[in-house]
């Protein structure tokens, strides 16, 4: 174990996997010489050279498509989209192609590829640069989706993603890059897909989150403890595969649940998580499940307004209190 940032943990995962397997390559806008817009690819060009670490033109759809083709051709590409907002320029290759080719070609091909994309709001980047689009990926079958909340998971999930033979959308939170935590040094340390992380055990209420929302939920739980409310905090870790069993069991036990999503509330993935709890724990629930979500607005620039749009520790605390108060 050593303490490192989420950014460095990702960087280490990339390095370890590139050392282990020469088929692992990476490319994207400014990932090589500039070492990444968020410096996640620092040192890769120097260590692995231009063949395996490449700057691309600003052509997101082609970044995604080149990864598909390279994966078909026997490589294990890790493509970077500079942020998830630009994935909207690549939806054709990601949704129409990446998620479909294995199926439509009758299982004759597989795509061992990863598309990394920093995500999330909170840095006053305004409407076009602050989106949380995880629902778009979770909704579409045919790809895996990982979204680490901690440095250890950042390393372990990215390594698993690179070794997985399915296409993986790998979402990183921009605000978490500088967060620190203990990370196993073992180069065989992997975090399996489809297994929630029970970050904190509790008995009164289940909080389900992912990415930065899991981190905020954990902070909310610490506050709530002071009020004598015992929260179980569950980080989904991967949105696909979804480890439904873990959060359903927890919610059935506590009888109360709050789902925290950074994305827009309407038709967001949180509704599906909440719905699964309602459907499966209907007779065990002591109160309706609550969703804490991003506001249904384009993100405003002004920090005063932006703050209102993103779930906060206070908002989660408030929701938990409401769920505790409600009793049927």
């Amino acid at each position, binding site marked *: 174990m050593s303490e490192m940032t989420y950014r460095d943990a990702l960087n280490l995962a990339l390095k370890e996997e590139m050392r282990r397997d020469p088929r692992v*390559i990476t490319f994207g806008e400014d990932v090589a010489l500039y070492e990444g817009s968020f410096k996640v690819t620092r040192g890769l060009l120097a260590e692995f050279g231009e*063949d*395996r670490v*490449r700057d*691309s*033109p600003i*052509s997101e*759809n*082609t970044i*995604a*498509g*080149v*990864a*598909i*083709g*390279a*994966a*078909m*051709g*026997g*490589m294990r*590409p890790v493509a970077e989209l500079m942020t998830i907002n630009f994935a909207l320029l690549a939806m*054709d*290759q990601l949704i*129409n*192609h990446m998620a479909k*080719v*294995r*199926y*439509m*070609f*009758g*299982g*004759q*091909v*597989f795509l061992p590829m990863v598309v990394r994309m920093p995500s999330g709001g909170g840095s006053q980047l305004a409407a076009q640069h602050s989106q949380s689009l995880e629902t778009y990926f979770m909704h579409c*079958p*045919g790809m*895996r989706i990982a979204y680490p909340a901690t440095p250890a998971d950042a390393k372990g999930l990215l390594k698993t993603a690179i070794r*997985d*033979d*399915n296409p993986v959308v790998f979402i990183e939170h921009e605000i978490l890059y500088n967060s620190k935590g203990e990370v196993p040094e073992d180069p065989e340390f992997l975090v399996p897909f489809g297994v929630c992380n029970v970050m904190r055990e509790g008995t009164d209420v289940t909080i389900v989150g992912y990415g930065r929302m899991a981190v905020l939920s954990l902070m909310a739980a610490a506050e709530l403890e002071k009020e004598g409310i015992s929260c179980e905090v569950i980080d989904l870790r991967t949105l696909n595969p979804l480890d439904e069993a873990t959060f359903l069991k927890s919610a059935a036990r506590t009888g109360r649940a709050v789902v925290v999503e950074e994305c827009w509330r309407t038709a967001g993935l949180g509704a599906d998580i909440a719905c699964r709890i309602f459907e499966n724990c209907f007779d065990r629930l002591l109160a309706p499940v609550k969703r804490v979500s991003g506001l249904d607005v384009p993100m405003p620039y002004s920090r005063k307004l932006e703050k209102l749009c993103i779930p906060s520790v206070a908002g989660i605390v408030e929701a938990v209190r409401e769920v505790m108060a409600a009793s049927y």
Partner: protein
Amino acid sequence: MESKLRELLSDAELLGFYEQMVLSREFEESCAEQYTKGHITGFLHLYSGQEAVAVGTTAGLQKEDYILSAYRDHAQAIVRGADPNRVMAELFGKATGICKGKGGSMHLFDPKLNFMGGYAIVAGQFPIAVGLAFAAKLKQEERIVTCFFGDGSMNQGNFHEALNWSRVWDLPVLYICENNFYGIGTVVQRASALPALHRRTCGYDIPSEKVDGMDVIAVYEAVKRAAAWIRERQRPYFIEAVTYRFRGHSMADPATYRSSAEQEIWRSRDPIPNFAKRLIDEGITDQAALDEIDARCTARVEEAVRFAEESPWPEDSAVWEDIYV
């Protein structure tokens, strides 16, 4: 009489070209019939008229070269060596289909033949072709990637990004534009700022040429030359094959936007009878031998239909298979 063709190819090869074109045509015309009968459903885009492009191109390539196409992909797959039985079964949606009935007409695929798929999103195949070329280059393989596409697809952003990227990274891609003058009902002049499509590559410093896509030999020679050039230099190249589809865009299209005069001119340029005449004129074969080939192709396609008809439907459980590894 002295034969120019014989200087290029053996008699067997030349007759092979003829047979492949006839087989493709027969296959497509049979598909039309099966569609009318309701055995084939969904979209059905036929290749009749364009056979010289698929046959000439494929002949100019090596077996290890990758090929990608759009949705008008039957002939390209069959010419590459796909089993007509399994292609027809795919179109019938049967379990024995080349993609287990999951892909249908627009999504043929056979990795053993390095036939890397038919794609139904116009221009969707471009970046995948570039990625395959990148993999081939990294692995220092000899292979090149051939990407078929239509005139209409060149107005998509994907086209531009692929051309630029493949030249910046210098990847072995052979772009084969099948200019049949129409994207559905829109004639090329109304969709492309520069209807001389091969000249579009000037903005990417990619060499290009135009070839008669109704002449299988012309296509073959151009592709062979281009493939060698690409293999040596590891850089993209572009060929515009001027051709014509004899039918509508798909079975749903009566193609009323084309004058009958225009259609007749192009019918007179049908790559099959014209090549047949040339083979006879140059003394390579006679009509009886060609008739025999025709009959063999007809029988081959009939067998494919029979195979498709008799094949089982997929099991219901198949619906959940082949999504994840």
